[in-house]
């Protein structure tokens, strides 16, 4: 079912958790709410579920205004980070719960409930464990029970709050793949919350990047990674470096020297240049480039990460090179140029003197995980 969030504001006391958030969730899609802790992503999920009520704004399920409905009436499936399984009930009873508590006229017959629960147990690959108690299951198994329990009520929308947050890396990866398969097979509209960008990019049809109670960008994983619309998204998704530069007649200058990049559409003045570690090319003879001293070198799987010092007034920059390229430039000084980059202007760039602009760059340092 299609879910539309319109101009939602939510305040806890005087602290605003969400500020004027709007989002259209398409029917049948798998969408991720991604952001650092405190960005409001879980609050948004709980508002859709009806576990919290908005201070202002409306939530539509299809054409129906769901904001006036209680959590019970919304018919959603919610999966909690720490599973929240009923510990005194078996796997089968946990999964049947949502059907058993229905009022008599809407409740399926006992045999039907059992059949549906067993089907779901089969779907989440836990056949044979239906008589176990939650305490007798591993973390990954518990999360599958939680998912089956949420799906048993045939929800309008499936909401997952950091579904893999409490699991170890290996199980996470498996469950991620498995969740994608389940989604493709059942077609439930699914919203999940995560602070793990890798998880969001790998799993979701679309990703909603959130920060400080607002949505920064909504898009497919490719759009988000390749065309970040704000410095926050650039920093939060993947690795990136930000350098304080100045623009002079369309030419980008770093420490008053041109670096061989042009941006004709921007006005002169200070700006921040963002690029990703792997979007760089090495240049011979620096007629217009960035140059730095190699201060560290790490081999990470198939690439070599070099840490460069571009001057004491700037944070160090990391670039990634294929190992063979990196060893061929076995010198302490490296000249390079970003191949894909983006320039962002900050409001204070246009007014503040350069020294202050540099200190604010430190405040802008990545906060995400």
């Amino acid at each position, binding site marked *: 079912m299609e879910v539309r969030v319109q101009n939602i504001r939510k305040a806890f006391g005087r602290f605003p958790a969400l500020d004027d958030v709007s989002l259209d969730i398409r029917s049948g899609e798998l969408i991720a709410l991604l952001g650092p802790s405190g960005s409001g992503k879980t609050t948004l999920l709980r508002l859709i579920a009806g576990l919290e009520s908005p201070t202002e704004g409306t939530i539509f399920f299809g054409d129906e205004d769901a904001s006036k409905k209680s959590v019970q009436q919304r018919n959603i499936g*919610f999966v909690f980070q720490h599973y*929240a399984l009923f510990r005194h009930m078996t796997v089968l009873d946990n999964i049947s719960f949502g059907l058993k508590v229905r009022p008599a006229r809407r409740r399926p017959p006992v045999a039907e409930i059992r059949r549906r629960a067993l089907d779901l147990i089969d779907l989440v690959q836990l056949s044979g464990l239906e008589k176990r108690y939650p305490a007798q299951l591993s973390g990954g198994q518990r999360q599958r029970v939680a998912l089956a329990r949420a799906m048993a009520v045939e929800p309008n929308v499936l909401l997952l709050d950091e579904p893999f947050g409490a699991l170890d890396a290996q199980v996470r990866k498996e469950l991620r793949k498995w969740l994608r398969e389940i989604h493709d097979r059942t077609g439930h509209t699914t919203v999940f919350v995560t602070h793990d960008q890798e998880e969001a990019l790998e799993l979701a049809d679309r990703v909603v990047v959130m920060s400080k109670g607002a949505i920064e960008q909504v898009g497919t994983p490719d759009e988000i990674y390749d065309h970040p619309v704000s410095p926050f998204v650039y920093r939060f998704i993947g690795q990136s470096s930000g350098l304080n530069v100045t623009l002079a007649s369309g030419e980008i200058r770093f420490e008053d020297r041109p670096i061989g990049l042009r941006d004709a559409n921007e006005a002169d003045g200070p700006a921040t240049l963002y690029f990703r570690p792997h979007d760089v090319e090495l240049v011979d003879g620096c007629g217009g480039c960035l140059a730095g001293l190699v201060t560290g070198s790490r081999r990470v799987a198939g690439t070599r990460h070099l840490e460069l010092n571009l001057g004491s007034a700037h944070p160090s920059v990391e670039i990634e090179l294929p190992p063979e390229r990196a060893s061929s430039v076995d010198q302490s000084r490296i000249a390079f140029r970003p191949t894909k980059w983006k320039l962002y202007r900050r409001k204070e760039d246009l007014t503040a003197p350069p020294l202050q602009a540099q200190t604010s760059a430190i405040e802008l340092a990545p906060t995400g995980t």
Partner: protein
Amino acid sequence: MAHDISSASAAAPPSLVDAATSESRLARAVLTAVALGFVALFLLLPLTTVFIEAFRKGAGEFLAALADPETFSAIILTLTVAGIAVPLNLAFGVAAAWAIAKFEFKGKAFLTTLIDLPFSVSPVISGLVFVLLFGANSALGPLLQSYGLQILFAVPGLVLATVFVTFPFVARELIPLMQEQGTSDEEAALSLGATGWQTFWHVTLPNIKWGLLYGVLLCNARAMGEFGAVSVVSGHIRGQTNTMPLQVEILYNEYNFVAAFAVAALLALLALVTLVLKTALELRYSDEIAASRRH
């Protein structure tokens, strides 16, 4: 760790390979002896004395003492008062713990402190409070009296005093338990379409049932054994407002030692049964208890 060390220094004298937390044999023996001696002197000895004194003149005298009409009425009264006070505090304790553990509201810390009040106030004062509230010179007492409702020196007064003294037990037991469990189980049940009542009955109650049971057992033990507060509000009318602890005192003051100790023994027996019941349940359901605490 201990294993590594012992294999590395196999030739060293045994005392060196002991785990860091173990004491020498002498220290262990002394500590155990002190603990056991203390228990024997201050718990076992008095308790045995009660039973020995009760049966000093044989089982016949013991039963005769309990069959005495005044004593018998005291036993019935104690059971009645506990039978009213315990369910009341059960309801109050669950409600208070639910409110404190699952909701945020103003005055929460104050309520939590208030629940402890009966533990910190002397029971005699608790009793006096009710005398002041419902006594002949108070505003409430004569008013209720005019409607034919006798509070002081009657069963209602005894129940009120007992409820006051025992009300922390259930709530105290449940609050930390419910706080630890949080609200996500309830949220899960609600999101699956369960009503508030279904959620309480099928999810919350099973999660807290062991804590609730301990609370009720302790509450019951105290309700039956309460002396101070009850003594102030009872008026000591024989055969009418004397509970078992008060009856023990009266009989003792009349040098009727066998009867006094007989009632005392019965009271002690009730306490022992409570303890045994608790331990038996713990043994019987130890797996389930462990599962409900962990997870």
